[in-house]
């Protein structure tokens, strides 16, 4: 039997900074964006001013498919923060769009992730112009 999982804390909202404010605004509009360097075209996440490869400042947002593979995950058996119903899963995803980039997120599945499993992002609207990005198996919605 697949194990039923709880949900992470609901009340913890991100505090965007001057580098990330627009990224969060795009995520709220269900767009997953990374930065692409105008000079060398290297993609990067999370948002920051300089390209770490060519050290130039000019860049633009590039909307990409939120897709990747499972690098790791944990099953939280303690609440850790108020408002959680454990056990809840946090997953570490290797992004397809940005080589070498790992991103954390919630897990939107009713069984445990698998190492190397293909996953896609799911936008979770949290109200007040905030969305978070959770992850689920890529074939999840395609199965009959």
């Amino acid at each position: 039997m697949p194990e039923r999982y709880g949900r992470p804390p609901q009340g913890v909202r991100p505090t965007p900074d001057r580098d990330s404010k627009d990224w969060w605004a795009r995520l709220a509009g269900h767009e997953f964006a990374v930065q692409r360097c105008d000079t060398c075209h290297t993609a990067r996440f999370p948002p920051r001013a300089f390209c770490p490869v060519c050290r130039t400042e000019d860049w633009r947002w590039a909307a990409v498919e939120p897709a990747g593979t499972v690098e790791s995950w944990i099953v939280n058996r303690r609440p850790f923060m108020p408002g959680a119903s454990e056990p809840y899963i946090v997953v570490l995803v290797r992004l397809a769009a940005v080589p070498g980039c790992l991103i954390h997120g919630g897990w939107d599945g009713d069984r445990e992730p698998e190492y190397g499993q293909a996953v896609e992002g799911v936008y979770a609207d949290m109200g007040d112009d905030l969305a978070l990005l959770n992850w689920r198996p890529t074939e999840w919605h395609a199965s009959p």
Partner: protein
Amino acid sequence: MAKRLLEFRDRTAVVGVGYTPFTKDSGVSTLTLACRAILAALDDAGLGPGDVEGLATHRVGDSAAPSLVGPALGLADPSWYLDQFGGGSVSHAVVAQAALAVAAGVAETVVCYRAINARSEFRMGGTGRGLPVSPEVQYQAPYGYFAPPQQYAMYARAHMQKYGTKAEHFGQLAVTQRANAVKNPRALMRTPITLDDYLASRWIAEPFRLLDCCLETDGACALVITTADRARSLRRAPVLISGAAWGGGDSHLSGGRADPTTTAAAALAPRLYAQAGLGPADIDVAQLYDCFTYSVIVQLEDYGFCAKGEGGPYVASGATALDGALPVNTHGGFLSEGYVHGVNHIAEAVSQLRGDAGDRQVAGAEVALSTAQPGYILPATSALLLRKG
């Protein structure tokens, strides 16, 4: 290798070690703990507060600053101090920088300390207070993720998946370190445990159980650093600082590390060994930062004691036990002695090289490695190579 760093080899020494008791509730301020440990360390060295020319600590907004400790101990015009922001990853960098100040002649004698009420006042990653100030928090905390056991569990899982590391490997490490703590009167946890005890301990964040996690501890530890020349005339046998390295490297930050199963220590280790003119085979005893079981296993690999991916089997072979090829965390480590955010590892390394570690003494120990948090939490790590003077 910068030439100046080679000149730094064996120029400075640790000449005093001081502790407060390790407890779950000290009942006193971190300022009080700091003063007690510093005075104990000076006494151990045969020195007094009048000899102190510099003070150094690391902290995360949770403890007494050098600028408070100096006046509290009536120190007249300290000529050098360091108030290093950061957690365990910078613990050894503090001593490294103190040693540089001493070698440069800025201050002849410096005391490095760490004082924490990490159980009764300020729990690392704990709830009930504001989140840490770091841009990275926004990408993790909304998912219910930012406490150190969660972060380390995430990397431990990746290592298990990639290399076949097993829960039993983590468990054997916890069992081995507890056996050392049984022989350490200072240790908080002195009841032996078995692998079954480990496997039966409750889940915290899978793959971590309770016994994968270090002890939230109230306590302080201090070290007196001076020149190798002066050390020869002091009370205790000097322990020379042969290598002291710190560095960056990536971290758990989103987008920060392409391979989560290798730490910043892998980049630092070659520089550290070259500076000291030593290698893994020369090390008689190692105190490896054990905020969690997994951090020891990955450092055994990244400091070159075994091949990448072989850290688990290396521990299971018994190599890290007191009678093994490389005794590790001979005091019981943060898992079983107590957690003073890196500094009690250095103190234990000094004790082993002095030969005063009692029932847990490693016979003939002449070279010791002591390491900081290997860089998963903040993008930095640091380490010391110490040698019997």
